[in-house]
């Protein structure tokens, strides 16, 4: 365990000085967690992989803003959550646009990035897997405001502590608890079939 921490510290130092090989080693160490985190927020693996890749590229570019006192993965979580937020905002806007102009552009579905997002949204095995492991939870999560959704995902689907979530999202531990409470209540109602 101690050896892993020392190795990570060394990799971080090298990556900060621009060593792409060391950064790639960090990516390999965190890729599983990164994709899983984004998956719990956006709800499908195709998009989760793309968003995680974009987040790692952002992390490499912004490495100068990473401070040694914060942990690398909490810093990375912040980038992952923000990139997911941007993605969902664009997707929502895209859905609104395609709703209004969709009937005119039905033939352009393959070249339209918004339509492409929709087409890759859920593959058959994913739908099956989700059904087995809690499709209803993801459906209920989609109805939550983004802050509550990300806090809920990081806590219950990713296993972060309250303090780690607070550090990742740059909010107080009290704010995390309040958001978790509200999200938990709404999720409970959604899963019972009540209106949240």
């Amino acid at each position, binding site marked *: 365990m101690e050896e892993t921490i020392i190795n990570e510290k060394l990799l971080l130092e090298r990556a900060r000085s621009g060593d*792409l090989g060391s*950064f*790639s080693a960090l*990516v*390999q160490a965190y*890729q*599983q967690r990164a*994709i*899983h985190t984004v*998956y719990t927020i956006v709800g499908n*693996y*195709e998009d*989760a*992989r793309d968003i*995680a*890749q974009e987040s*790692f*590229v952002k992390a*490499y*570019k912004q490495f100068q803003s990473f401070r040694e006192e914060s942990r690398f993965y909490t810093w990375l979580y912040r980038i992952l959550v923000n990139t997911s937020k941007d993605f969902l905002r664009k997707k929502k806007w895209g859905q609104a646009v395609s709703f209004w102009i969709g009937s005119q552009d039905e033939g352009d579905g393959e070249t339209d990035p918004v339509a492409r997002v929709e087409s890759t949204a859920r593959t058959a*095995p994913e739908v099956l*897997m989700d059904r087995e*492991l*809690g499709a209803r*939870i993801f459906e209920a999560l989609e109805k939550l405001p983004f802050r509550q959704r990300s806090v809920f995902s990081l*806590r*219950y*689907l*990713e*296993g972060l502590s309250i303090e780690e979530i607070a550090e990742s999202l740059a909010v107080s531990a009290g704010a995390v*608890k*309040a958001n*978790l*409470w509200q999200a*938990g209540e709404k*999720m409970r109602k959604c899963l019972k079939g009540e209106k949240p």
Partner: protein
Amino acid sequence: MKNKSFEEMDKSLMEGLKELREKKVPPVYLKGFSESIERKILDQEGKKSFVFEWPRFTVSVWVPALAVLVLAVTLVTHHPLGMRSLTEELSEEIDVIAELGEWSEEDESSLESFDESDLEALEVSYAGNAGRNRLA
């Protein structure tokens, strides 16, 4: 929100969602993941260095031209015969013309009746004054 109820809810959700939390990402989504990121970074760095050449070239060409332009503007705005004095003179002329009003037939006829001897007298008196000025 009571602390006890939060802790209860937190505990039950942590237990209830354990299976979902421990779910692994299918290997197909991890294949070539880091290589793809490396490629994207290298592509973007390549584009960045290409774009960087342009400002260097542009700056070397435009810096002297901009310097000359700034000097010219400074000279014009700060010289006594520069922009300010010119605008002042122009506004004075406009005031004089406004006072004179429209050129009438009477003005025309008074000019015709102007005696040339008066003009000569004026020239002599001007020459005299100039001489005095020189002597002084």
